[in-house]
């Protein structure tokens, strides 16, 4: 296992460097300098030149890339070109809030989707199954932006039960204390995730229900509860484990829409704003973090699979 993890880590480093190179090249080839985006349309040529010199955009591309690598190795992500703060500070301010929103939504979604999918599989072709399938398809077809607006329109503006915006607390602890205001944004994420996860779960459970080991378990007199929880759930969860692993990057990145509609400042929005401003230091750091999370997510999923199913061996 340790050898495997070390080998995967080495591969991950290569992948991450490749991503860094690709993103850096793509950014600089499309826009060699962000000066006009940052300084505005009425930036004089002299101001543009001064900006480029100050930030090194007048240097050869290879020189800029090596500088970027050197800074990254030293965990220095530079200063935002627009926000008068270091990228590290901006990440620190926003990452916890994004991770909390996504993490809570992910856990709740899994806790709902797994039993729901199994229940549907066990009671397949029943009214319950048809209803759950219909609702899942219905919700899955909704863009998340639309889900957010419906929730706000109904539960905030019409019924006035819940706040129209997420918690405005700046600390994670503050957000946790303001749980009521997080109900709608978390619900929006849960709704779209449950729809997807439960479909995978149902499909996987259906496959497993037809397996001999389930028949054997039942034949030897195990209770239905035991069959479902001890045998079926564990074996049917493999696709969900993979999906959850791949969802890890979403902890930081995946909630641009929810953050924007529910007025919740987070990393997704930070990235989107930086994209509009061509704020290179933020864009480079964000994609780097994203790449690392993808790699970690895959690794975690692989390891979790071996724990769930000992027949799977990491080699």
């Amino acid at each position, binding site marked *: 296992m340790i050898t495997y993890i070390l080998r995967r880590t080495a591969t991950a480093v290569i992948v991450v460097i490749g991503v860094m190179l690709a993103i850096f090249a793509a950014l600089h080839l499309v826009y060699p300098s962000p000066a006009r985006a940052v300084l505005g349309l009425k930036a004089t040529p002299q*101001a543009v030149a*001064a900006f480029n010199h100050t930030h090194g955009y007048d240097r050869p591309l290879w020189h800029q890339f090596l500088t970027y690598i050197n800074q990254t190795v030293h965990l220095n992500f530079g200063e935002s070109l627009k926000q008068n*703060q270091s990228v590290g500070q901006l990440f620190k301010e926003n990452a916890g809030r994004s991770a909390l929103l996504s993490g809570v939504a992910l856990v709740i979604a899994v806790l709902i989707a797994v039993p729901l999918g199994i229940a549907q599989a066990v009671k397949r072709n029943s009214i319950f199954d048809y209803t759950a399938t219909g609702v899942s398809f219905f919700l899955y077809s909704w863009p998340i*932006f639309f889900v957010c607006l*419906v929730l706000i329109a109904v539960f905030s*503006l019409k019924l006035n039960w819940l706040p129209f915006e997420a918690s405005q607390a700046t600390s994670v602890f503050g957000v946790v204390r303001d749980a009521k205001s997080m109900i709608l944004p978390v619900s929006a994420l849960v709704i779209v995730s449950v729809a997807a996860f439960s479909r995978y779960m149902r499909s996987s459970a259906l496959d497993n229900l037809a397996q001999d080991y389930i028949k054997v378990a039942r034949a030897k007199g195990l209770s239905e509860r035991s069959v479902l929880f001890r045998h079926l759930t564990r074996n049917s969860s493999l696709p969900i484990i993979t999906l959850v692993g791949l969802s890890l990057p979403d902890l930081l990145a995946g909630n641009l829409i929810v953050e*924007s509609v*529910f007025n919740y400042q987070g990393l997704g929005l930070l990235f989107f704003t930086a994209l509009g401003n061509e704020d290179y230091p933020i864009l480079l750091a964000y994609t780097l973090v994203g790449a690392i999370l993808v790699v970690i997510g895959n690794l975690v999923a692989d390891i979790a699979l071996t724990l769930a199913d000992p027949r799977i061996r990491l080699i």
Partner: protein
Amino acid sequence: MTPLVFRRSRFSFVALAAAGAILLAACGSSGSSGGGGKQAPNGAGSTSTTEGQYGTLPAESSNVITGGTVTYDIENGSQPQYIMPVTPGADTSVYNAEFQYLLYRPLYWTPQGNRPIINQALSLAKLPVYSNGNKTLTIHMNSQYKWSDGKPVTAQDVEFFIDILRAAVKENNANFGNYTPGAFPDNVVSMKTPDPATLVLNLDRAYNPNWYTDTQLVVIQPMPSQDWNIASTGGPHLDPSNAANAKKIYDFLNSEAKKVGTYASNPLWKVVDGPFKLTSFNPTTDANTMVPNPTYGGPVKPKFAELKAVYFTSSTAEFNALRAGKINVGGVPSADIPQVPLLRRTGYNVYGYPDLGFSYIVFNFKDKTNHWNNIISQLYVRQALAHLEDQQAIIKGVYHGAAAEAYGPVPAIPATNYVPANASTDPYPYSISDATNLLKSHGWNVVPNGTTTCQNPGTGPNQCGAGIPKGQNLNFTVYYTNDPPVAGQETIALQGAAKQIGVNITPVAKTFNFIIQNYDDPSAPQNNNKWQVENFGGFNEDIYPTTDEIFNIKGSFNEGGYTDPKADQLINASKFSSNPDALKAEASYITENLPAIFTPNEDRISAWKGITGPPDSFASLSQFGFTPEYWQLTK
């Protein structure tokens, strides 16, 4: 006063907001939007509407309370991010200025209501007196203004600003967003303060007084010379007239201004001359809170207890807050105009008016591909294309009535002192037949819904023009910005009209950044032959709206490489002559000569609730004039 910025929606999520508007429309009850154009808007109002105005301005109420908190919106992408008046280009925006001006007043305040002119009642100094053939000007300070530590705002404070500004731009041209080499402060040869209330500036040459006051002096924001003339916290007070000292002071002030998290606690920023003092500033969102500055010397002091800037991640979130009645003042994005009746029903007042500036569809005069440069250099071709633009239909269909017709760089709305006669009547009104006739009379075979071609090449009065061969078509591509969506809608409308005279337009969407960085003749000459026409928006303008740098031959922002010696001459006169009507002549010629197709100017709409004040204090929001000190909460 208004910094020069690109005329672009502040809202980054216009598309999302549009979808939101659809949903909210479905959830709420329907109703006419009211307002806009020449229609009579609904809603309680006491003043009559004028063209281009959206909504009405209610009369000031006497049903008020003292104290309380007034809340207003700041949105993602338009947050204040720099507190010191010598603001770098990266942080320069009208929104940053709104924030700063609450703390640090500009020497000359604009606007006055919805008129982009100097408001003398709110200015720190009287209008300058020009002498010595317009090479010298004298500024007399208004005596009632004081810093929050009790010291008067003096001519030395203006001088200090200029000294620090000089140091900033000498260090790096990008250190001041409104700096153009050769202009202010470079054009100030010397200055003196014969007494604390008087500043004399000697200029490097004679300038048009209107140009100098309205474009150069309006960038001045006096700074507390006796408190900020230090190079370190607790350090000795330095003489800023010494360039080396000025650099040290600037470096220190700039480094402190970059510490966003300390804005509310740093003693430097506690010395203010504006109507408010900062008490909290959230570095993550830039949301902030201010309280009244008791020493403010302006004509009206704040009567409420707290002013809160509430941050929103998107215009959708901001509009939801308006719908929920959670903020007193907020902007209304154009995509949400159909929802205005819902706001009115919950007690909001809504008013909009175009801010000073112009929007245009830019011709590239340097693209030689397919003889485009020869085609577009013909005035009759530009006139024919201008006739294809149906401004009234665009205002109604694209802007929901919240825009005003504009035919040149100085529009009739909002009114300034420089509106030319031809700004009030469209010199090239929408007319397919006029466009057809112009082309036919110059040797083109017009094929409606087909392809119009040149049949009579040559340089005669009834021929196509120099460099246009027989069989040449008039087809071209328009690159338009995908955000805000109005640029695309305008372009599609033009495409439809052009088809009727056999001109085939290919609309291509690009990001705003891509267009301004790649399709701009002065800064990206390598791409001069890659684009014919573009629609990226336009410009906000100074209150003296000359097109200097935009339409003169060597203009840094002359996107399409427009070249016209007479235009240059007129622009030059606007800047340097003593003729007070020079700008009118310039604007009139540009309007007639069509370096671009000028498009309607969108209203800047605000909604407010639970507060009252003089109508002008709300009308000025349309011109980025933010004067909450005039407001009071209502019972």
